[in-house]
């Protein structure tokens, strides 16, 4: 039946129709793009912009921050060259003495208060303390000679450092003139470099005077200690007093090593380049805009940030996770409808408002609580400061709860329902099902929720700036729990506080950028870890 076959012309026509349909030439296009393409490129573009911005931020941070190490190295070298390091041996000795004097005065204060409580009048109390005062005054005065030598040497060293600064400024000026093409004027500017060797010789010439004064100092201390008599204080205060005496003895014994260090010291010992890095990463002091020597050690800020975050997590993790468990497993639909929006609303509160609350209310409340007499057994109570790491930690916990709660709840809800049903069908209680099935199955999700909560907390700025007390010092961990009630400063706080005041390009400016880089790396690391954990969790649930 050949007639029923389509002839070749017909065939060709049909093929063309099919191929046209397949190529879909009539489809709506803008600039040759279909709507699907437009959507695709739009989102690809968004992703590309996000990545680009991230890269730019990193490049910028590194560019601004990297110069820090060179500048810090010079900072450290001049510290040695100009003899500041040398003078610091003496200054530290003087400071240690000041510490001891302060302790002695504090002890007097306690005894004095005790006398007043006993019913003595002020005159009587002073009378009773006469013996102790003999000791305390004498002890306080012992240092005078050494202190005056130290301040002479300080001046001398600062003068050397200033000469160096002037030399550098002149060079700068000359370079600027040259760049401006005013070479004649540049010629006229004379920069004379500092001869550190001979300058420091002058400084070292004061050493014999110091040594003599130091011997005197030691014998005076011994005499002062003898002045205290047998029992200048009442029994309960004799323990601390003897402790103080012991400290004074150790202090005296340290003189020999100070003198030896000074004898050994020369200003031409080179400082290796890596010290600039270690001085930043492991430096225990952050001291800026000082007339003497600036230190850029990140440790106090890092510890402050970590301490505040640890407090925040210690509060937020139990509450956030328990809340998530409650909402996802126990609460009725009505309760869910109330609790969830409320918790999620917390994250909408501007952090400056929270900080304000911390300053105005929470700090005060916490301190009032710590001052109640029947809580005085608690270590670290009463708190001496209203704004401290606990205040900031509590508020940060409040901010971290929504993050931890929402992500942990997601993780729990992601556990397939049939695991839960299987457990109940075997006669498990709700508690058993939560603890033995749901928690293990969502553990990595919960851990990553906690990590992201940590990321949220360590990056928070406003609250810590307002409420952490902003004292740049490593908390005294020998006080145990009391360390949590001390004011700290944080990495975010210091950037926010100081960035506005620094000269762009200065070492201080670059140091702040380095702190920013440390923060950035921590945040990146935490997020990366959280994502890795979530990925593993997906696989394990399968």
């Amino acid at each position, binding site marked *: 039946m050949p007639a029923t076959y389509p002839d070749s012309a017909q065939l060709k026509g049909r093929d063309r129709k099919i191929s046209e349909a397949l190529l879909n030439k009539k489809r709506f296009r803008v600039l040759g793009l279909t709507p699907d393409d437009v959507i695709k490129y739009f989102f690809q573009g968004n992703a590309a912009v996000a990545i680009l911005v991230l890269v730019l931020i990193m490049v910028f941070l590194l560019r601004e921050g990297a110069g820090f190490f060179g500048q810090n190295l010079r900072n450290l070298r001049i510290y040695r060259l100009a003899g500041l390091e040398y003078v610091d041996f003496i200054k530290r000795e003087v400071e240690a003495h000041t510490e001891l004097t302060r302790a002695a005065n504090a002890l007097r204060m306690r005894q004095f208060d005790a006398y007043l409580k006993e019913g003595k009048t002020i005159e009587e109390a002073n009378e009773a303390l006469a013996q102790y005062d003999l000791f305390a005054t004498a002890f306080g005065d012992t240092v005078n000679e050494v202190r005056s030598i130290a301040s002479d040497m300080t001046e001398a060293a600062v003068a050397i450092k200033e000469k160096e600064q002037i030399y550098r400024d002149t060079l700068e000026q000359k370079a600027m003139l040259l760049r401006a093409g005013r070479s004649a004027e540049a010629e006229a500017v004379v920069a004379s470099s500092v001869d550190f060797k001979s300058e420091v010789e002058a400084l070292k010439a004061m050493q014999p005077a110091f040594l003599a004064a130091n011997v005197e100092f030691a014998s005076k201390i011994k005499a002062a200690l003898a002045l205290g008599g047998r029992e200048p204080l009442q029994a309960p205060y004799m323990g601390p007093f003897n402790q103080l005496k012991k400290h004074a003895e150790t202090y005296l014994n340290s003189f020999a090593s100070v003198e030896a260090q000074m004898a050994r010291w020369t200003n031409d010992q080179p400082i290796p380049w890596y010290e600039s890095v270690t001085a930043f990463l492991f430096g225990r002091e952050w001291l800026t805009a000082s007339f003497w020597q600036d230190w850029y050690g990140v440790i106090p800020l890092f510890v402050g940030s970590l301490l505040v975050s640890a407090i925040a997590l210690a509060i937020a993790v139990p509450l956030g996770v328990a809340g998530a468990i409650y909402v996802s497993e126990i609460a009725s639909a009505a309760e869910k409808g109330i609790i969830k929006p409320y918790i999620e609303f917390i994250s909408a509160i501007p952090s400056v408002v929270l900080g304000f609350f911390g300053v105005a209310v929470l700090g005060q409340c916490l301190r009032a609580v710590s001052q109640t007499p029947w809580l005085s057994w608690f270590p670290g109570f009463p708190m001496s400061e209203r704004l401290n790491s606990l205040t900031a930690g509590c508020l940060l916990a409040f901010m971290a709860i929504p993050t931890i709660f929402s992500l942990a709840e997601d993780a729990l809800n992601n556990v397939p329902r049939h*695991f839960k*049903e*299987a*457990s*109940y069908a075997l006669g*498990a*209680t709700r508690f058993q099902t939560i603890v*033995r099935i749901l928690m*293990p199955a969502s553990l990595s999700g919960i851990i990553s929720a906690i990590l992201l909560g940590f990321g949220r907390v360590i990056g928070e700025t406003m609250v810590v700036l307002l409420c952490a007390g902003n004292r740049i010092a490593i908390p005294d961990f020998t006080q145990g729990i009391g360390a949590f009630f001390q004011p700290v400063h944080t990495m975010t706080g210091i950037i926010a506080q100081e960035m506005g005041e620094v000269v762009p390009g200065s070492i201080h400016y670059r140091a702040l950028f380095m702190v920013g880089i440390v923060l950035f790396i921590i945040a990146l690391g935490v997020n990366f870890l959280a994502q890795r954990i979530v990925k593993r969790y997906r696989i*394990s649930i399968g």
Partner: protein
Amino acid sequence: MNATFETRMDTLPQAARGSQQGAPDTSDPMIEIDHLDFYYGANHALRDISLQIPGHQVTAFIGPSGCGKSTLLRCFNRMNDLIEGTRIGNGQIRIHGIDISDPAVDTIALRRQVGMVFQKSNPFPKSIYENIAYGLQIQGVRDRRRLDEVVEKSLRGAALWDEVKDRLHTSALGLSGGQQQRVCIARAIAVEPSIILMDEPCSALDPIATAKVEELIHELKKNYTIVIVTHNMQQAGRCSDMTAFFYLGQLIEMGKTEKIFTNPVQKQTEDYISGRFG
């Protein structure tokens, strides 16, 4: 109430299990349902259902999707309690003569007596051993030897022992679908229930795995009362003694399986079985 329930639950199945030696006491209905109405909120899912499920037999529930088979099955171990807004409007469910719809019934004890195997095999993301031991561990059994024994016995009971005895401590999720479903059956029988509910246990399995599970059901019937929901007519025909046909939340007909399949009383049953709807 709880005490009587537990004691009767403990004694009665023991008496019933006497059948292992003698003939099964099929005259004693294991589950009795009287005029049961069940609601999901406002949705009236089960309407006036009355039926009796005999002990030591396999009872199949058939019917088109959405007719309430799973709902009824989940009433037997009160799994519907987990869904908010569900309630029994009317009627009674008695297991071993005890009304389990009473809110005072201890659902934990009930679920230990009435085990369940789900449509989608759902072993926990734990090892095979831990899966089987779970039911005992939550009852406080710590004794390692006892657990070992029960695990082996249950896996043998589920015809899985030989296949997995060398990998008891590897993840149950690494097994094939059929093996996973048998792990779930082993897990259910490890707590020694008297009744096992199965909700389309083979719907996700290939024919070979299905055959194995069916064979297993046949074995299990000696020791347990089984209620199985199935969409597969041949399966209902092959492995059940009794069949109940549901339609739109109502029980249309229940009787001996041969009778339902060869000579149903109701026209709707005949239409469904012959594949004219559903």
